[in-house]
């Protein structure tokens, strides 16, 4: 296996399968026309290309460019790596040809760089394999993450009819202008989504506020003071982390039914913080431990009380951590589904997640459901992308929970 004339063709063949599949899926999803990767032909074409790329090590050797161009052009016949359906538009065919050639050349050149034709050292062989895996990994992960979100957004813009006619055709007719967003306007007009959006926002913000009010003093105590039962306390916090929500939801449902708190925003606002306090406390105490005690001791020496020290020294120092925790708690509250689903029945009091669940019925068209999903996703994504740094930190610090 450690021979360039073996490694090259094998990697080339596999790589062409990857590229052809990616191109076929991408083009299918964007045009709705028929594209099919031909695995056997891919393997043959790729093996030839791999051999050529190993044999001619010059970066822009004519043989390399030639085989890539040939490989792209072969798409016009029935013997290319990608089989193009008969009724595909000329532009799509041209795009396929060009993309196959243009992508294949630099990517294969990168994978097989410094790979000699004859015997390979262990390093050269493994590096080539790693480069292949890296390329595959990027394509694979990007595809699995992007495709569902792409489908979600595009479905919400289509009509039920068009969707059933060709589920692959996600091309959007931009000429229809505002009518493109009719699912969204209908959700906001007929399904109260404006109210749900506001309720969700309100509930999440209140949850963040209550969680911080409870967990900041608690976390400080755990991090700074020595007292009996400290270890047991930290452990039970972690333990509470592990109790499944559905187990708690059952008695909470009973208690709320009996006391009449079910179906009220007050009930939701009472219950959400309790699910987030342990997480927040756990995250914050880790951060507080990392703060230097000297600053606080200086404050104490200057005559501040403990509480004043927390308020005037510790909290300002831990603003980044507070931001992370707030974002994380906001995310949990915004995305929460189970409790909202069980405790809210009255459509005027729904949170956004509960509202979207309501859309999952056979009487309501699919694009409404997807539009609801987009409405629920966009705010949290915007927040996430805007404050990615804090969010990532918060996730690493506390989100052993899922």
């Amino acid at each position, binding site marked *: 296996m450690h021979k360039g004339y073996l490694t090259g063709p094998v990697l080339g063949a596999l790589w062409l399968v990857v590229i052809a599949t990616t191109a076929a899926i991408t083009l299918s999803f964007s045009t709705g026309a028929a594209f099919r990767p031909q695995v056997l032909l891919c393997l043959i074409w790729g093996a030839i290309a791999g051999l050529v790329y190993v044999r001619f090590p010059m970066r822009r050797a004519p043989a390399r460019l030639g085989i890539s161009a040939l490989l792209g052009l072969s798409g016009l016949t029935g013997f290319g790596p990608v089989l193009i359906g008969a009724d595909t538009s000329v532009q799509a065919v041209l795009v396929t040809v060009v993309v196959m050639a243009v992508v294949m050349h630099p990517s294969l050149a990168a994978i097989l760089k410094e790979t000699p034709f004859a015997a390979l050292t262990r390093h050269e062989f493994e590096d080539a394999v790693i480069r292949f895996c890296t390329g595959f990994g990027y394509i694979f992960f990007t595809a699995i993450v992007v495709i*569902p979100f792409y489908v979600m957004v595009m479905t919400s813009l289509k009509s039920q009819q068009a969707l059933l006619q060709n589920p692959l055709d*996600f091309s959007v007719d931009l000429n229809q202008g505002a009518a493109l967003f009719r699912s969204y306007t209908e959700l906001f007009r007929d399904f109260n989504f404006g109210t749900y959006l506001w309720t969700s926002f309100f509930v999440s913000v209140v949850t963040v506020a209550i969680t911080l009010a409870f967990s900041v003093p608690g976390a400080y105590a755990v991090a700074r003071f020595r007292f009996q039962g400290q270890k047991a306390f930290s452990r039970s916090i972690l333990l509470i982390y592990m109790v499944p929500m559905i187990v708690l939801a059952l008695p909470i449902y009973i208690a709320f039914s*009996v006391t009449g708190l079910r179906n009220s925003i007050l009930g939701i606002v009472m219950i959400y913080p309790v699910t987030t306090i342990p997480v927040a406390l756990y995250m914050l105490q880790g951060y507080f431990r990392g703060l230097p005690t000297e600053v606080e001791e200086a404050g104490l020496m200057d005559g501040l009380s403990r509480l004043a020290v927390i308020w005037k020294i510790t909290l300002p120092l831990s603003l980044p951590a507070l931001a992370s925790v707030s974002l994380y708690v906001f995310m949990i509250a915004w995305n929460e589904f189970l409790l909202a689903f069980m405790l809210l029945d009255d459509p005027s009091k729904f949170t956004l997640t509960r509202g979207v669940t309501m859309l999952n019925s056979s009487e309501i068209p699919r694009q409404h459901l997807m539009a609801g999903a987009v409405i629920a996703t966009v705010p949290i*994504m915007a927040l996430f992308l805007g404050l*990615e740094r804090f969010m*990532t930190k918060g*996730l690493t610090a506390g989100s052993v929970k899922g």
Partner: protein
Amino acid sequence: MSSATPPTATGALAKREARLAWALLAPTVISVSLVVILPLLAIIWISFKPFTLSDLRPPAPIVRESLRGSGDDMRIEYRLRNSSQEIAIDGVSFSDVLPDGVTVGEVTAPCVLDGQQLLCDFGTLEGGQRERIRIPITVDGDLDAFEDLVENSEPDVTGSGPNVLTNLDFSLENFARVFDGSEFWGVLWVTLFYTVFGTIGALVMGLFAALLLNKSFRGQGIIRGLYLFPYVAPVIAVAFTWVTLFDPFSGSANALLVQMGISSEPINFFGERPLALIMVTVFEIWRYFPLSFLFILARMQSIDSSMYEAADMDGASPFQKFWLLSIPQLLGILSVLFLLRFIWTFNKFDDIFLLTGGNAGTRTLTVNVYEQAFAISNIGAGAAVAVVILICLIAFSFVFFRFISREEGL
């Protein structure tokens, strides 16, 4: 001079500190125990009781009061019924104050009239039993005003049925039902499959993604953010998207498979027996690989690079560096992540519930709690399943704490 020893007794300062600590912790402790400890005890209590959804409203006597008749033949009518069809209510009686300006005719048993105070005692009211009391009256004055007066004054009712929740009858019936038959073992097997493969899959994918991003290049931050999308997006949004994507009739994934010639006809991904379980496991992996990825990446970036330099000097190949350096360094975080994710996947409810509703062989223990309690309306049986889950969790957390005390970090 005696040698100096640190003070062993708790001094005043330490005491004050401890007091302040508990004062700061009190709100958390109280609220958490109200919403976590209390429900946990409640669920254990309920699991030993034959408690169904309809028992949430205990049987109660209901009285309706109305004015009937006309002219000389006027009467106040009380209609009493038991809200439950099966369960008897003890000590049922009601009393009502009749308005002024009314002359009451003959009052029959079980009612007695004391001045203007009417008292009717029924004793025990059987399930579904109805009673009608007619009190003949004559009214002087405005009839309409009087009718309002009668119908707006609520009689006081006493009597309560047995409350299943608070009495001291216990039975093992719920557990017998839960463990009965092959269903339970099926559920347990599904749970184990989902948990084990979901956890390992997410870990392996996370490791792969972390290896990809463990170098700095332009756009690394963007890709890292992108790979976190599945975890950050609301579960309802992504779950419904998957359902739409894999729909047998209008799903794009099926259309793609048919078009590519991989499958000749649409596949019902979330509706067929072994496939649905695999699909929910794949969803779990897809949704939670970002978490493992994030943790593993954070650990990788803290590995001392001089070790790799030394390995390079010794001529180690890339694979050797991975297996002999990276993996041992990551073993700690990998095993902690495995344990935590194992517990959390075991607890997962939302995902499967939204994707399949627990149908087509995807019913895990947590979904079973919901199914028993709400689909079959047997809260007691649901609670029994919940207790089984709790026992498993106690076992897991025992392992976890044995382990975590050795593994620092998390």
